[in-house]
């Protein structure tokens, strides 16, 4: 297998809790990897570690063969990212914000218009970013991640704050990216229904532990084996049940362990 991102027993321990607990992930080149888990599962922390925003307390990882902090610059040149909430200079317009990123990445001027077009923000490019609506800020954040069409995209709940048509539009855009310019996408969400529509592979995280990693088909097979589907027919609702049951089961085990 040709993996572009791998983590090996990646751990992030804070003073009184473990945010990410020995997570070993394998993300195939050219695929969309859905990172799924309830709020506080450790998805954002894992992504932050992959971007060097926070350092792991255990384990290791590689991004396209590079390691942090030695290869920070070369890794970040290849990665477009969007973490938690959109980040922007409030005193600059959307276009000026993207121009700052373009200059850092050393891209041609046309890259800004390309990114604005991709996220449907072209007509609002000259408006100050602080005057954008939440959805527009979200799109600006995405445009910043897509600028220069990087080979790796790390997107943390990118559809938060978007209206239903915006969610649909961005979802279709993300889905089309690997075929559009051969990129790899790591996308997080707490909704299986959303990930199911985009991802090739899935990782399910709960309380920092990776409960499942595999293709969507493997997850479906698991759902059949676990008895979540009648007549071997898997619907989105069945998968959602399966996901929730995995989380509940893990939570119950944790609770039991805590009582002992």
């Amino acid at each position: 297998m040709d993996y572009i991102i791998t983590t090996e027993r990646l751990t992030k321990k804070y003073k009184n809790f473990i945010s990410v607990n020995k997570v070993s992930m394998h993300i195939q080149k050219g695929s969309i990897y859905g990172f799924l888990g309830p709020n506080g599962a450790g998805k954002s922390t894992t992504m932050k570690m992959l971007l060097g925003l926070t350092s792991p307390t255990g384990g290791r990882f590689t991004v396209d063969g590079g390691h942090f902090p030695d290869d920070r610059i070369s890794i970040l040149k290849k990665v477009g990212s969007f973490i938690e909430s959109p980040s922007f200079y409030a005193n600059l317009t959307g276009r000026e914000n993207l121009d700052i990123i373009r200059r850092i990445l050393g891209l041609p001027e046309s890259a800004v218009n390309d990114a604005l077009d991709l996220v449907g923000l072209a007509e609002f490019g000259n408006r100050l970013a602080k005057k954008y609506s939440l959805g527009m800020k979200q799109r600006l954040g995405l445009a910043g991640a897509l600028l220069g069409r990087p080979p790796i995209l790390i997107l943390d709940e990118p559809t938060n704050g978007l209206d239903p048509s915006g969610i649909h539009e961005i979802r279709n855009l993300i889905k089309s990216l690997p075929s559009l310019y051969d990129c790899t996408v790591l996308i997080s969400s707490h909704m299986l229904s959303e990930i199911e529509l985009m991802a090739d592979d899935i990782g399910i995280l709960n309380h920092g532990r990776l409960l499942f990693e595999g293709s969507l088909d493997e997850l479906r097979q698991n759902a059949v084996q676990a008895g979540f589907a009648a007549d071997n027919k898997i619907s989105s609702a069945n998968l959602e049940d399966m996901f929730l049951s995995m989380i509940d089961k893990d939570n119950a085990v944790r609770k039991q362990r805590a009582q002992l």
Partner: protein
Amino acid sequence: MKTLIIELRKEKRTGVIPLLLLVGILGAAYAFINFIVRKDTLLNLPLAPMDVLLTQLYGMIMVLNMFGIVVAACMVYNMEFKGTAIKKMYMLPISVPKMYLCKFFILTVLLLTAIVLQNLALLKIGISDLPKGTFEMDTLLKFTAYSFITSMPTLSFMVLVSSRSQNMWMPLGIGVAGFLSGMALAGSNVSLLLVHPFVVMLKPAVAMSAQLDNGIAIIAMAETSLLLGIGLWMAKHLRYE
């Protein structure tokens, strides 16, 4: 150079550049107006004309520069924290210490421009209003350099403080506290107090002579370098969390 251009572009609409230019213009205007209004009183003081020119006007100019430095340093990092733009910078292939260094450099150049504007006013006053033959160009140049060097620890300290505080009111409060405590301590001869960057900046303002104090200049340069070094180290090692 690329990082410097990027930093300059980020300054758009922040008001940092106009602020420090305004400080320079206001300082120059103050010197002119003060000398026009109090010319006779000032020249009758028991001081050499060059000492009058350089020490009697410097107090207010220095206060303007100090507030200019405090506010500009707060603004230069506030735009990074507002909208969490700095988080995006940490995720891009840009050197964070270089970014810090460029902000420091931009503020340094702006402060120097303000000081040059103020001293051009002093030059004009010196040539046209001091008794004939008393104006000394080299003394003015030396004092300009001295006032710039002694202002740098405050600038270095304020950039460091504002780079670590997401809330702009924190560095602003620290700046005001630095000014007030500096004012209270500047008159003291205790050498240990020179670790306080605001005291170093205030020293030429409380002196009655335009003669340079090499010891203070050396301490100022050492403090500037030390605080800059700490800022760069922190920019490199402390990450966004």
